[in-house]
């Protein structure tokens, strides 16, 4: 590992005291803290770092910031591999490993570079015009090839080992960008006492001050920045967020930002996240995001060694790294002068300054003379020589052309304000003909722009403008600023002209480097009628790569305007969308990964069920016991059948706490219930429970459950597990919006009560043993009774004589802190009665045997009549859904209607989701008679039975049809029957 050959011995903002060891494509290099991967590569003389997307052309480093289109690498390895990482923003750390991407077998020799030979065919939109014959070849041949060639880097193969988190941050003033403008604005706002957040994506505050040789208040810019940061850090209400990109603007002062907490480390510190998503809520915002320099468009302007002038100055000044040995500076802007000066000072010999302007200002001329660089005025670079890297350039002046040797070409094409965030809420940038730049148009409310982002390019003016913006923002947020002094700086030369492309250049002139879009692609798109700027973008894919056109979009608009002959103002830009720079998906997910994706809801007796070896199943957020396997049982059906038999023959207990429970009180409670339910509730006596059916306003069934009356003005409503939340909202809507005068109070008490079904011939006996001697006889607690008593030696309990299973059955509820105790007590007290816990499957078998409807039937597409519940629907009152339920199609006698069925052959198995077909009928839509909603193996019947919705099903009872399940290759003869298979007279449940 040799010492970096292009690193200057002094100057810059790198810590030479410490050496960081890193590798690129397996080769080891040295860098320092303060370096980016790009600056370290520059310092080590590495010029070729990537291959382009389409033509696989060799590429180097174009920029020194987030706008980088070329220098994308695969950073890190294995589970932490990050494709498409910009070397220009990746902070160097010891042991960093990076690889070039989109090349094979190697960066230097890339087979797909042959694409360049086909380049003339691969122009804008070529793939829309071919690969069409024969049709079948697309999936088989063309597309697989294209897909393999597409994409740049490779994602990781396995889950990400790192942590992410999200947090919300509120402030009075958010300042986006920590260059001179941002720092000045933050200082001004901070002094007012407002809560200020200053975010900068860089790991060091200062912006261009770190890259230029400006002085502020008589100090070097970087030193002034450090001082400003120190001042801000001392303000209690100011929060400094470095390594934090504000990526998106959302409605009403909400901003998305991502903080790269640990990306400058090999692995995050213990318990530290890799990245943190900040949801920033700001009263006012100052956008001080700076400006992005425009490349110049000339022949082979993509060769390694062709660099933005501002970037060259950044490498020279901030990183003390020489981007080349001999430079030619090509400028349309005063920056040309600045660049030759800084490069020469850094030890780069400057062969020439090529300035496209007819009038080259004195400062620039003097700068060139001072470093003995030849000045070509009114001249352009037409072409670069050298494949793997710049070797020479062709220069054309008004009178002659010449060729100069060099290994570095700097492009100073002028600056475009970084206004992306001003467009996120739909604001369109406005063209400023004088400044030859797009400026922020209509702004998001609460946001103002300062500094280069606002098109103010002179440091002196920027500092004044930004200070004022800071005061203004704080004042608007309620913190009037007092006589704040703006920092002072000298005037600087900032004039330039726009040159969208060099005419009659040789070779390919790239506008969008990453997507390999050239000036002629744009011209061709226009020729082919793709002349709206949005069509041009989509047809050529310009601006659609990972850099989102940061360096290309404005040049492209200029070229398109030339081609259409329309002014730039009318041509406009494409739409800037979030994120400003790409954001890791993991950061946006934060904590909510794996099992933490969504909360899990457990019943009070979950621990008890788990101890019983229950197998659990998701039901919405809840986990519910499905069955309780016993030793020796080989599949769920055995367990389930055993549980059913236990209930039917003795007694079983089942946790039904997940059902929604809503406490409803008030003088008008009965009125409300009558309006919510299709059947009448107002006649329900105290101490009784009643089954109820709720419709949606559109007349279809919404939910079912029971209502029990606990007092003159007090009811308890139960809902299905699935709809509990929806029903609560429905009631609140009714009470607050539909009928605001009804004097009713409703509140969910679902979590307060642990409720168990106790079912089976011996259930009364069992209950008597735990209910503290209360009378639970049939006389005291008749069918559909609802009583309050105590259990377990004084625990207040609610006992409901309701039966889902069809057996003599109860539901008993106790405060949920006693849930496990209740279950344990029932099991202990019932051991000699053969008590058995049962799960959802057994419950489902028994309710199907009884023909009770549940999830499969309550699917939002069924009416009361479809479910055989038509007679429940009252005609004496208005209720939600009454009117719409009368529409012809909802009362059509040919609607599929609830029917039961059993298999003809006891050996056959049926499945839900199968459709009803007549015997011998072909499986066609025309023959479709409906579908099967629920199935169960019925121990009572000794065969599979089920429920379904079938056209005229009830009229066809006794007939044989088929359960056709094409996707599971089943076709089973079944016999239609009443949906109630078990004890139709209901003798057992009344027993």
């Amino acid at each position, binding site marked *: 590992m040799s010492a970096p050959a292009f690193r200057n011995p002094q100057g810059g903002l790198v810590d030479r005291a410490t050496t960081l060891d890193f590798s690129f494509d397996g080769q080891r290099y040295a860098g320092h803290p303060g370096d980016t991967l790009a600056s370290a590569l520059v310092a080590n003389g590495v010029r070729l770092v990537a291959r382009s997307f389409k033509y696989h052309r060799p590429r180097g480093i174009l920029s020194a910031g987030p706008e980088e289109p070329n220098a994308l690498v695969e950073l890190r390895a294995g589970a932490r591999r990050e494709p498409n990482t910009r070397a220009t923003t990746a902070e160097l750390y010891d042991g960093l490993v990076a690889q070039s991407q989109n090349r094979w077998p190697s960066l230097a020799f890339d087979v797909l570079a042959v694409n360049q030979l086909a380049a003339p065919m691969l122009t804008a939109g070529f793939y829309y015009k071919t690969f069409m014959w024969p049709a079948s070849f697309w999936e088989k041949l063309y597309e697989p090839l294209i897909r393999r060639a597409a994409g740049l880097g490779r994602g990781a193969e396995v889950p990400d080992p790192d942590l992410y988190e999200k947090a919300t941050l509120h402030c009075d003033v958010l300042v986006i960008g920590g260059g001179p403008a941002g720092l000045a604005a933050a200082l001004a706002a901070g002094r007012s006492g407002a809560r200020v957040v200053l975010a900068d994506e860089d790991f060091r505050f200062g912006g261009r001050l770190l890259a230029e040789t400006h002085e502020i208040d008589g100090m070097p810019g970087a030193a002034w920045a450090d001082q400003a940061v120190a001042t801000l850090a001392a303000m209690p209400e100011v929060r400094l967020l470095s390594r934090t990109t504000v990526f998106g603007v*959302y*409605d*009403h*002062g*909400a901003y998305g930002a991502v903080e790269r907490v640990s990306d400058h480390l090999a692995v995050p510190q213990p318990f530290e996240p890799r990245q943190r998503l900040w*949801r920033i*809520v700001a009263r006012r915002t100052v956008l001080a995001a700076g400006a992005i320099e425009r490349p110049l468009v000339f022949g082979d302007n993509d060769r390694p060694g062709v660099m933005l002038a501002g970037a060259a100055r950044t490498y020279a000044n901030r990183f003390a790294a020489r981007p080349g040995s001999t430079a030619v500076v090509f400028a349309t802007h005063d920056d040309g002068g600045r660049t030759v000066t800084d490069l020469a000072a850094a030890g780069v010999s400057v062969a020439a300054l090529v300035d496209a302007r007819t009038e080259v200002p004195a400062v620039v001329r003097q700068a060139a003379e001072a470093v003995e660089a030849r000045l070509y005025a009114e001249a352009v670079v037409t072409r670069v020589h050298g494949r793997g890297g710049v070797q020479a350039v062709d220069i054309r002046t008004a009178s002659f052309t010449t060729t100069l040797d060099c290994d570095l070409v700097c492009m100073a094409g002028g600056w475009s304000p970084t206004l992306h965030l001003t467009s996120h*809420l*739909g604001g369109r940038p406005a063209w400023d003909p004088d400044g030859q730049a797009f400026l922020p148009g209509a702004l998001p*409310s609460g946001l103002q722009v300062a500094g280069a982002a606002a098109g103010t390019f002179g440091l002196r003016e920027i500092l004044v403008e930004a200070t004022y913006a800071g005061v203004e923002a704080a004042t608007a947020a309620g913190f009037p600023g007092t006589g704040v002094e703006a920092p002072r700086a000298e005037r600087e030369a900032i004039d330039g002209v726009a040159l969208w492309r060099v005419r009659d250049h040789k070779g390919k002139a790239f506008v969008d480097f990453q997507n390999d879009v050239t000036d002629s692609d744009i011209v061709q798109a226009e020729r082919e009628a793709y002349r709206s700027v949005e069509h041009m973008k989509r047809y050529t894919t310009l601006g659609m790569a990972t850099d989102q056109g940061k360096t290309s979009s404005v040049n492209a608009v200029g070229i398109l305007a030339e081609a259409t002959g329309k002014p730039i103002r009318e041509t406009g830009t494409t739409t800037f969308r979030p994120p400003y720079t790409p954001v890791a998906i993991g950061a946006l997910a934060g904590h909510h990964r794996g099992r933490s994706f969504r909360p899990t809801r457990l019943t009070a007796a979950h621990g008890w069920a788990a101890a019983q070896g229950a197998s659990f199943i998701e039901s919405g957020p809840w986990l519910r016991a499905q069955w309780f396997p016993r030793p020796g049982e080989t599949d769920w059906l055995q367990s389930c059948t055993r549980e059913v038999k236990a209930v039917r023959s003795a007694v079983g207990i089942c946790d039904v706490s997940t059902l929604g429970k809503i406490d409803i009180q008030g003088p008008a409670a009965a009125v409300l219930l009558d309006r919510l339910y299709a059947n009448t509730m107002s006649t329900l006596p105290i101490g009784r429970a009643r089954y109820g059916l709720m419709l949606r*306003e*559109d007349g279809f069934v919404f939910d079912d459950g029971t209502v029990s009356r606990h007092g003159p003005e007090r009811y308890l409503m139960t809902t299905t597990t699935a709809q509990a939340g929806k029903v609560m*909202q429905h009631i*609140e*809507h009714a*009470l*607050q*919006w*539909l009928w*605001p*005068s009804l004097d009713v109070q409703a509140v969910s008490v679902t979590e307060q009560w642990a409720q168990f079904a106790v079912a089976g011939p011996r259930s009364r006996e069992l209950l008597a043993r735990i209910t503290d001697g209360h009378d639970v006889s049939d006389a005291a607690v008749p069918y559909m009774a609802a009583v309050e008593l105590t259990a377990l030696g004084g625990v207040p309990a609610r006992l409901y004589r309701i039966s889902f299973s069809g057996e003599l059955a109860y539901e008993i509820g106790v405060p949920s802190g006693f849930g496990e105790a209740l279950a344990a007590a029932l099991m202990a007290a019932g051991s000699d009665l053969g008590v058995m816990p049962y799960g959802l499957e057994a419950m489902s078998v028994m309710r199907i045997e009884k023909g009770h409807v549940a999830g499969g039937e309550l699917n939002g597409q069924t009416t009361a009549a479809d479910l055989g519940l038509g007679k429940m629907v009252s005609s004496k009152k*208005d209720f939600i859904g*009454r*009117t*719409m339920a*009368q*529409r*012809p199609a909802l009362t059509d006698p040919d609607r599929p209607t609830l029917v039961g069925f059993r298999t003809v052959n006891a050996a056959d198995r049926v499945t839900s989701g199968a459709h009803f077909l007549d015997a011998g009928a072909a499986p066609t839509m025309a023959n479709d008679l409906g579908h099967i909603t629920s199935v169960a193996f019925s121990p009572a019947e000794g065969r599979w039975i089920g429920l379904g919705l079938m056209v005229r099903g009830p009229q066809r009872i006794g007939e044989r049809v088929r359960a056709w399940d094409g996707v599971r290759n089943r076709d089973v003869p079944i016999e239609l029957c009443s949906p109630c298979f078990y004890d139709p007279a209901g003798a057992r449940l009344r027993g």
Partner: protein
Amino acid sequence: MRITCPHCGERGNEEFSYLGDATVRRPAEPASPGTPAFDDWMGFVYLRDNPAGQHRELWQHLHGCRAWLVVTRDIRSHAIASVEDARSVALARDGAGA
């Protein structure tokens, strides 16, 4: 999007659930299909102005105070002009006085 609940203050829209147009009104009387009164029910259950401009709409502060709210919002820009407690609006609507 930030919605200022008149009871709880400003919150993110993740705390709210949306129902829709607050200008449609549930008819006082049931109606039978085919009758003119049924048209009012169509207007309540199915038909919407969906205007490109100010929209009065029902939200519920579901993950907060659970109050239903009437939000007046320009649905082109999302700019919110007002947020009112729905029950108060409903009482005024029904002439019951808030």
